[in-house]
Structures are given as structure tokens and as C-alpha cells.
């Protein structure tokens, strides 16, 4: 996907910053909103060229719905991974089989790659060590399958279902 127009990118940055400002101040006082709008416009003007490439297209309803749906999905995955690691720690025989595996991804968007890497790191048991040319190098507490396809099936595929829609 190519770059969106400057106006679209600028507006997108300002809107995101203004929403963040409302969360920061947690106040709907008109004075806070006025100053927040001024700061959003200024900071947006300084940083929009770095911040976003696709601009307002990020507000596509399908992406927002998938983005919201990703939060409980991710939290559930994190909960299950926590229980899994807790089980391995508490088990007297300590059933671990650690190793570093290589995974591949279908994501092409850099932000998508960032979210995937952080999601993998935040779920206990797996840590992203490096991302290079679309290949993920992951430390895995229990290597079930050392092949690229097998590891990807277990680690990156579950998150990609959502991420490839959110970050096409």
C-alpha cells in the first residue's frame, strides 16, 4: 500500500494525539480540551511524517473492530501462556525443552511486525530475540517442533489471524 496524502496523515496524527490527550488529562474541562487541541496540532505538524504512512485509512471500521477484538483474544492467550509456564515451574519433573526456533510471518507492514514481536514477547514462554527480513528468532520454553513451518504454526499463526487484517 502506498503513502496516503499529507492531509490525511496529518489529520490522523492529530486525532490520535487528541484522544491520547483526553486519556492523559482524564478531564473534559473546556480549557484542557482547547490546549490539548493546540498541542495536538503542533505535535502532529512536527511528527506526522514519521508517525504514519497510511493516514486516515487506519480508521477503516474493519480494522478498528479487529483491533478491539484483538485485545481480549491477546489477553486470553497471555492468561493461558501464564498458566502453562506456571505449571512447568511448579511441576516436580520440570517439563521444559528450551531452544531457539526460527519462524516466518505473512505480515508485510512494519507496525504489524512490531505488534507481533511484542505479542510474542508478552506471552510467557516465548521471547522474540530478533526480527530480520521477516524472519523471527524466538526463544521457546518448550520446543514442540523445531522446523520453520511447525514453529510458525504454533507461535506466529494464532496472532497473525488478527494482525493481518489490522495491519494489511
Amino acid at each position, binding site marked *: 500500500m502506498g503513502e496516503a496524502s499529507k492531509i490525511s496523515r496529518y489529520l490522523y496524527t492529530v486525532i490520535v*494525539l487528541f484522544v491520547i490527550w483526553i486519556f*492523559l488529562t482524564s478531564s473534559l474541562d473546556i*480549557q*484542557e480540551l482547547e490546549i490539548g487541541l493546540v498541542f495536538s496540532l*503542533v*505535535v502532529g505538524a512536527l511528527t506526522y511524517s*514519521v508517525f504514519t504512512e497510511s493516514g486516515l485509512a487506519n480508521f477503516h471500521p474493519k480494522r478498528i473492530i479487529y483491533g478491539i477484538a484483538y485485545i481480549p483474544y491477546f489477553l486470553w492467550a497471555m492468561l493461558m501462556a501464564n498458566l502453562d509456564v506456571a505449571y512447568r515451574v511448579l511441576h516436580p519433573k520440570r517439563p521444559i525443552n528450551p531452544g531457539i526456533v526460527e519462524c516466518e510471518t505473512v505480515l508485510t507492514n*512494519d507496525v504489524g*511486525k512490531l505488534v507481533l514481536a511484542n505479542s510474542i514477547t508478552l506471552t510467557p514462554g516465548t521471547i522474540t530475540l530478533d526480527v530480520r527480513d521477516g524472519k523471527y528468532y524466538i526463544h521457546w520454553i518448550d520446543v514442540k517442533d523445531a522446523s520453520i513451518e511447525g514453529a510458525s504454526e504454533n507461535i506466529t499463526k494464532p496472532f497473525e489471524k488478527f494482525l493481518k487484517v489490522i495491519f494489511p
Partner: protein
Amino acid sequence: MVKRILAIIMLLIVGFWMANALSGVPFGEDKMLVGKYYLENVKEQTGAVNAVTAVVVNYRGFDTLGEVTVLFIASTGVGALLWRKKKERTAKSEGSVVLRTGSKILLPFIMLFGAYIFIHGHLTPGGGFPGGATIATAFLMLYLAFKDYEIEHKVFEPIEGLAGVGYVTVGLIGLAIGSYFLFDWIWQTWGWGHENIGRLLSAGFIPIIYTLIGIKVGTELTGIVDNMVREEVKDND
């Protein structure tokens, strides 16, 4: 023997002097007259609900101008010590895609957060110095992530100078309108924001000065980072 007598006389003099000084202090009452004065008058005189900020920027604004100068001298010192004819980024390897994308996405949020800290200086803990330092970390992150990133010196250095000049100008306007340097003309003469105590648009010139300090500290610390990261390049190799 004479020495001992002299020592005893000295001790008696010192003891008498100290007892005299302490006899005026009533037992069980605090002596923080200045602190009490600030706490009792801070709202009427400065409009700030954060008494610490009112003392730092309003009552002792001249002292804060000195602190800004100290930082400026530190930055100049770093610049002078690390000065070379030709300096360039010499980093060999770029950050990974995670670091690069992350720093790009976080840049506007960190800058907004820095602005949030310095504009709320008169309401919450914080102010121009931490706000400016927060903004500088955004640029530090860009330096770490990209091997050929450099700030635009032609933009940063004039902004830094203008912010410093702006602080002195606010003080001089106070001198012209009121009676002394850094007189709070917005609050005391114009009387703006008297109905807004506790809200954002109050406290006279404190938000203005803290904005200027935030910009100045941010650009200055970024300049220090820039001076430290770039290394000398020799022409003949």
C-alpha cells in the same frame, strides 16, 4: 594554664551567645515563617494550586532563570569539549525493525506527554524541566534507532535561543509594568484567570514560562545528546 582559662572564657561567651539567641524561640511552635507565608498567600498572589511551582517560578523566578543558565552553560561546555571540525554519525548497524518502528510510533506520544507535563506545572508535580527532559528522550530514541539520523541544527539552535530570550522578555515586561524583574503581570496587573484557580488557564505567567523552559530544556538536552553521539571524521582516510 592560661590556655585553659582562655578556652573556658571562650566557651562561656559562645554559650551565652547561643542561649541568648535561642531564648527568643517559644517552645513547641514552628519557626517556618517564610514557608507559612508562601502557603497562606500562594493562591491569591500567584494563582497556582501547586505551591512548589509557585515558589520555583514566581517567588523565586530569578533563581530558576539562573538554573536555566546553568543548563545552558553545561550544554555549551559539552559542545566546546567535544567540538571537532567535522562530525558525523559513525554508527555501523541500524536498529532492528522492532526498534525502528517502535521509536517512530512513540515519537509523537512522548512529545505530547512532555508537553502535558510542562503545561500542567502549576497544577501537578512536574513542570518545564522534566517535561523538556521527556521531549529530549524522544530524540534520543531516534538517535538510537537510526544510524544516520541527525536533528536539524538550523531549526533547533534558533528555537533554543528564542526560548531563552522569551523567558528574559517575560521578566522584562514585568519590570516595565510592575516594579521588579519577573513581576507576574498577567496575574497581578491584568488579572487573567482569577476565576479559574485549579483549572488549566490560571496562575498568570507560570504556564508561559514553563512552556518556554520545556522547549529550552528539550532542545538543549537534545543538543547535548547530539554532541555526544556524533564522532569526529578525518578527511584523509
